C-alpha cells in the first residue's frame, strides 16, 4: 500500500480531435458567459464550425501521418483505432452539416424558460436571437458521440453516453414552434434515457462483478479464461445490451424514437438521427465484438430476434404514419435493424472486417441522406411552422419540382434503389451477412425493405401524383446553410450511389485491422 501512483500517460495527439471539440464547447460556454447577446451568434458559428472542421482535419492528419495506432490510448481507456477514426470522421461530417442546419434562424426558442405566449417570451423574441446555448450544447453532444464510439472501457462509455445524451435532452426541448410537443419530447427522452442508462449501469456493474474489470479487453479475456457460465454475467450482458439497444432504437426499445424525433427541433432530430446512431453503433460494436466477442454464440440468437423485430416493427409501423418526421423516425428504426444484421454476421477475422466495413459504409450513406432529408423537411413550411402532416405535402412536386425531386431521391435512397448510396449501403451490409450465415436475416431484411419501400413511395405519390391543395405549404427560400446541406447530401447520395469505390476502400482500410483491445 505504498502511495506511489505513476502518472497516467495520455496520447494527446490521438485524442486531439475529441479534445478540440470539447475545448470548443467550453469556449462556447465562456462566450455565453462573457460576450454580449448580439455578438454571441457571430462568435459561436465560426468557433463551432471551425472546431468541427479542425477536428476532421486532425483525423485525416492522424490517419495519413501517424497511421492507425496499434494500442489503446489514455491507459487503455480510449481506443483510437481504425473503426474509431472512420466513425469519428463520419460523426464530424454529419455534425458539421447538421450544424449548418442548426445555424438556421427561428428554429430555436428565444428563451426556453419562458412560458409560450407569455410576455417574457415576447420580449425575449423582441431582443432577437435564438438561444445561442445550442452551440456549446451541440458541441458537448458531439464530443460525447466521439467519446462514446471510441470508449474502450465501460465506465468511459457510460460517461460518454451521458455527455452525449444530456445536451440532447435539453436541445430537444428548444423548438421555437410547437413548444408543447418539443417539451414533451424532451421530458420523454430524458426520463426514458435516464431509465435506460440505469439499466446500462446495472449491467455494467454485473459484468464488472463477473470480470473484475470494466476494460473491454479485460472482460473479453476474462470470458476467454473462465468461459461464462454465470447467470449474473448473462443478466449483466442483457442489461448492457438494453442500454445500447435503447440508443440505437432497436425494438422493443424503440418507443421513444418517433415521439422524440417528431417533437424535437428538426435540426436536432437530424443530428440525433445521424450522429447519435453512428456513435451508438460504434459502442454496440465495441461491446459485443470486443468485450463479448467470446460470448457470441450466446448473444447471437437474441440479437437475431431483436434485429428481426426491429426491422419488421420499423417497416410496418411506418406505413400508416401521417407525420413526415415520425415516418422518418420509424424508417430509422428499420435501418437500425438492417445495421444489426451486420453486427450479427461475425466469424473469422476476414468475415468480421467485411461486416465491419459494410456497417461503416452504411452508417455514412444513411447518415448523410438522413440529414439531407430532414433539411428538406425544415424547408417545407406553412403557417404553424414546418408542414409536418403528410397530407400537406400533396402536390409539392408541382409547386417546387426541384426540392420535391431531391426529396424523392433521398426517399429512393432510403428504399435502397440502385444508383443511390442507400443501395450500396444495404448491399455492403447484406453481402457479408450472407457469407456470415445470416441468410435468414437478409431475407427478412429484403422483405421488410420491400414493405418499407411502400411508405417511401407513398410520399412520392403524394408529392408528384396528387394535385396540390389550395392552401398548400410554401417552400421557404432556404438559408445558405440549409441549401448547402441539401446540396451536399444530394451530391453525396449520388456520388456514393455511382462511384462508392473510394469510400469503400476507406472503410475497408478502417475495418481491416478491426478493433484494438
Amino acid at each position, binding site marked *: 500500500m505504498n502511495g506511489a501512483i505513476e502518472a497516467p500517460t495520455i496520447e494527446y495527439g490521438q485524442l486531439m480531435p475529441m479534445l478540440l471539440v470539447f475545448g470548443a464547447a467550453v469556449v462556447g460556454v465562456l462566450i455565453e458567459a462573457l460576450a454580449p447577446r448580439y455578438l454571441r451568434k457571430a462568435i459561436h458559428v465560426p468557433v463551432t464550425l471551425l472546431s468541427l472542421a479542425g477536428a476532421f482535419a486532425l483525423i485525416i492528419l492522424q490517419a495519413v501521418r501517424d497511421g492507425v495506432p496499434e494500442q489503446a490510448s489514455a491507459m487503455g481507456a480510449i481506443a483510437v483505432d481504425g473503426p474509431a477514426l472512420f466513425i469519428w470522421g463520419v460523426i464530424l461530417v454529419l455534425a458539421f452539416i447538421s450544424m449548418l442546419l442548426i445555424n438556421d434562424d427561428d428554429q430555436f426558442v428565444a428563451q426556453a424558460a419562458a412560458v409560450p405566449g407569455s410576455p417574457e417570451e415576447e420580449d425575449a423574441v423582441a431582443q432577437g436571437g435564438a438561444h445561442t446555448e445550442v452551440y456549446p450544447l451541440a458541441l458537448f453532444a458531439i464530443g460525447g458521440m466521439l467519446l462514446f464510439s471510441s470508449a474502450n472501457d465501460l465506465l468511459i462509455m457510460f460517461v460518454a453516453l451521458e455527455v452525449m445524451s444530456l445536451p440532447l435532452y435539453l436541445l430537444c426541448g428548444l423548438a421555437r414552434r410547437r413548444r408543447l410537443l418539443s417539451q414533451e419530447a424532451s*421530458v*420523454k427522452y430524458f*426520463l*426514458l434515457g435516464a*431509465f*435506460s442508462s440505469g*439499466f446500462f449501469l446495472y449491467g455494467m456493474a454485473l459484468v464488472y462483478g463477473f470480470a473484475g474489470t470494466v476494460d473491454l479487453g479485460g472482460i473479453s479475456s476474462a470470458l476467454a479464461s473462465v468461459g*461464462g*457460465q454465470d*447467470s449474473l*454475467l*448473462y*443478466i449483466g*450482458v*442483457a*442489461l448492457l*445490451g*438494453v442500454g445500447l*439497444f*435503447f440508443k440505437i432504437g432497436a*425494438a*422493443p*426499445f424503440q*418507443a*421513444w424514437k*418517433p*415521439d422524440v424525433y417528431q417533437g424535437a427541433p428538426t435540426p436536432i432530430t437530424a443530428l440525433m438521427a445521424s450522429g447519435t446512431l453512428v456513435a451508438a453503433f460504434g459502442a454496440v460494436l465495441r461491446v459485443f465484438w470486443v468485450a463479448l466477442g467470446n460470448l457470441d*454464440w*450466446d*448473444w447471437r*440468437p*437474441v440479437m437475431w*430476434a*431483436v434485429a428481426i423485430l426491429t426491422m419488421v*416493427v420499423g417497416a*410496418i*409501423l*411506418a*406505413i*400508416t*404514419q401521417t407525420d413526415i418526421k415520425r415516418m422518418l423516425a420509424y424508417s430509422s428504426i428499420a435501418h437500425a435493424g438492417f445495421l444489426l444484421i451486420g453486427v450479427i454476421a461475425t466469424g473469422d477475422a476476414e468475415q468480421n472486417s467485411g461486416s465491419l466495413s459494410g456497417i461503416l459504409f452504411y452508417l455514412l450513406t444513411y447518415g448523410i441522406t438522413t440529414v439531407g432529408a430532414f433539411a428538406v423537411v425544415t424547408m417545407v413550411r406553412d403557417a404553424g411552422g414546418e408542414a409536418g402532416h403528410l397530407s400537406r405535402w400533396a402536390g409539392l412536386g408541382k409547386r417546387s419540382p426541384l426540392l420535391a425531386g431531391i426529396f424523392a431521391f433521398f426517399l429512393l435512397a432510403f428504399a435502397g434503389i440502385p444508383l443511390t448510396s442507400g443501395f450500396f449501403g444495404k448491399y455492403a451490409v447484406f453481402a457479408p451477412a450472407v457469407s456470415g450465415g445470416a441468410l435468414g436475416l437478409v431475407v427478412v431484411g429484403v422483405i421488410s425493405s420491400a*414493405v418499407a419501400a*411502400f411508405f417511401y413511395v407513398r410520399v412520392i405519390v403524394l408529392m408528384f401524383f396528387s394535385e396540390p391543395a389550395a392552401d398548400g405549404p410554401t417552400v421557404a427560400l432556404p438559408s445558405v446553410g440549409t441549401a448547402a446541406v441539401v446540396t451536399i447530401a444530394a451530391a453525396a447520395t449520388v456520388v456514393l450511389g455511382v462511384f462508392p469505390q473510394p469510400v469503400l476502400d476507406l472503410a475497408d482500410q478502417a475495418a481491416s485491422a478491426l478493433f484494438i483491445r
Partner: protein
Amino acid sequence: MEPVEIIQHSGGVIGVAWLMIALPLLGAAILLLGGRRTDRWGHLLGVVMSLASFAVAVLAFVELLGMSGDQRRREIELFQFIPGMVDMGLLIDPLSIAFALLITGVGSLIHIYSIGYMSHDPGRRRFFSYLNLFVAAMLLLVLADNYVGLYIGWEGVGLASYLLIGFWQHKPSAATAAQKAFIVNRVGDFGLAIGVFLIWTTFGSVAYGPVFQVAGQAEQGVLTAIGLLLLLGACGKSAQLPLQSWLLDAMEGPTPVSALIHAATMVTAGVYLVVRSGAAFFPVGSTAALVVTVVGVATLLAGAIIGTAKDDIKKGLAGSTMSQIGYMMLGAGLGPVGYVFAIGHLITHGFFKANLFLGAGSIMHAMNDEVDMRKYGGLRKLLPVTFVTFFIGYLAIIGFPLLSGYFTKDGIIETAMHHSPVLGWLAVLGAGITGFYMSRMVFMTFFGQKRWAEDAHPHESPAVMTVPLIILSIGSIFLGGYLVLGNTLANWLAPAVGGPEEPIEFHFVTTPGIATLVLVAIGAAFAWMKYGRAEVPVVAPRGSFVTTFARRDLYGDAINESLLMRPGQWLTRLAVFFDNRGVDGVVNGIAAGIGGTSGRLRRIQTGFARSYALSILFGAAVVAGALLLVGNI
C-alpha cells in the same frame, strides 16, 4: 401406280411460277397502299393482275404438258423461310396446276364480272384488292411444296374470306358473319397446325417430297392421327360437318365473293389437302380415309336437306355447295379412282356453281339486291341470258345426262358403291334431294307469276356480267365429259396422286346411274308440283318440323350456341371475376393486411412515457431471460 418422284426444277415458265402468286399480291398491295388515288382504275388493275396470273398458269401448264408423265412433278426453291425447318418452295405438278388454272381462270372471270356488279359500290377498289389478295393466298395454298406454306396460304385465304364476307362492315350481320367464319376456320386450323407439328416431329420435315417418301414407314397410329388432324382442318375450310355452320352466314358477302371463295375455290381447299396428302395419310381402307368418306356423305346429305328449305337464293346455293363438297370429300376418301372424280367434280362444280352464283348475283342485281326467292317469279322473260345460263348450271348440278355434273358426280357415286353400298346409296339419295331443291330454286325464280316488290324493275345485266356467265355455262356443259371420258383427267393426275391400276372406263348405264336419274326426276317433278304449278306464298308458311329443322340449318347454330358459346361466355365471366377477386384479390389482400396490422400496431404507441418504460423493462426481462436460456443450454 404410285406418284412419281419430285424433281428439282429451274428455268422456264415454271421457274418463275412464283409470279402467279406475286402478281396478284402486288396488285393487292398497290390498291391498298395507293388509296383513293387508285379508285378510278383500281378494278382494272385487279383484273389485269388476275389475268396475268392466269396466263402464267397456262404457260406453266403448257410447259408441263411438254414433259413426259414421270417428269411432271417439278419443285422450285424460293427461299429459306425458317432456317433448318422450312425452305419455302413451289411444287408445280398436275394437281397443283389444275387448281391454279381453276383458281386463276374462274377467278379472272369473277373479277371481270365484279366490275359490273360492284360498279356502284364506293369501296370497289378495296374489294378488288381483297380479291387479288385472295387469289394470291389461294395460289400459295395449292402451289406450296410444304405443309407450312400450305398453312400460310390456308390462313391467308381465311383472312381474305374474312375481309370479303365482312366487306360491308357497317352491316352488323356481315361483321358477325365474317368473325364467325374466321373463328370456326381457326378451329379447323388448330387441327391442321397440330397435324403439321406431328408431321414435323415424325418425319423431321414438312416438305411434301421427303414426308411422302418415308410416310409409309411411320406407325399406323401416327399416320391415322395425322390424317384425322388434317381432316379437321379440311372440315373447317370446306364447311364439312361438324364445322359447317359458317358457310351459310358467309353469304353476307358480295355475291361474286360467294361465287369465287365460297363455291368455286376456297371451300374446296379441304379436298385439295386430303387429295394432296392422300397417298401418305389417307390410303384406301385406312381409318382416316373411312372417316373422310363418312364426313363427306353426312355433309352431302345435310347440305342437301338445308338447301331444300331456304328461301334465300344464296343460302340455298350455299347449302348445295356444302352438299357438293360432301361428294368431293366422299370421293377423296376413295383412293386414286376417287381422287380423279373428286378433282373432276371439284373442277366442274367450280364452273357450274360459280355460274349459278353469278347468275343469282345477276338476278339480285336486277331485283335491287332482293334475295328472297318468294319475291321472285317469272323472271325468265326479263333476264333471258341469266335464265339460260342459270338453267344450264342447274342441269349440270342435278347431273342431267352428258352435262358436266353428270359425269363427275356419277363417277363418285359409282366408286362409292364399289367400296360400300351404304355410302353409295346415301350418295344417290343426296342426288335425288339435289334434284328437288335445285328445281325448286329454278321454278321459284324463273317460272310462276311475278311476286316482286312494287319498286322492282328487273332488267338484264350488262355484258361485263353476262359474258362470264356464258363462258362458265359453256364450261358447265362440256368440261365434265372432256375430263372423264378417255381418262384425260385420270392420266393427267396420275403422276401427282397416283393412278388406278387399270384405266377407268365410264359406264353410261348402271344401276346407280339409273336410280340417280329416277330420283332426280322425282325430285324435280315434286318441286314442279309444289313450286312450279302451284301458287308460291310470298310469306313462307310454317312448315312441318322437318322444314323448320332444315330452315334452322339442322340446328347447327343452336348446337354451337348451347354447347360452345354460352358455356364459353360463362367461363369468360368466371375467369374475369376470378382474376379480379381471386388472383388480384390475394395481392391487394396482402397489402391491405399489412396496412391493417400497421394501423393496429401503432396503437401500442400510447404516448404515455410510463408505458414506454414498461416496454423497456419488459424487453429487458425478455432479453435477459433469453440470454439465460441460451447460455445455460
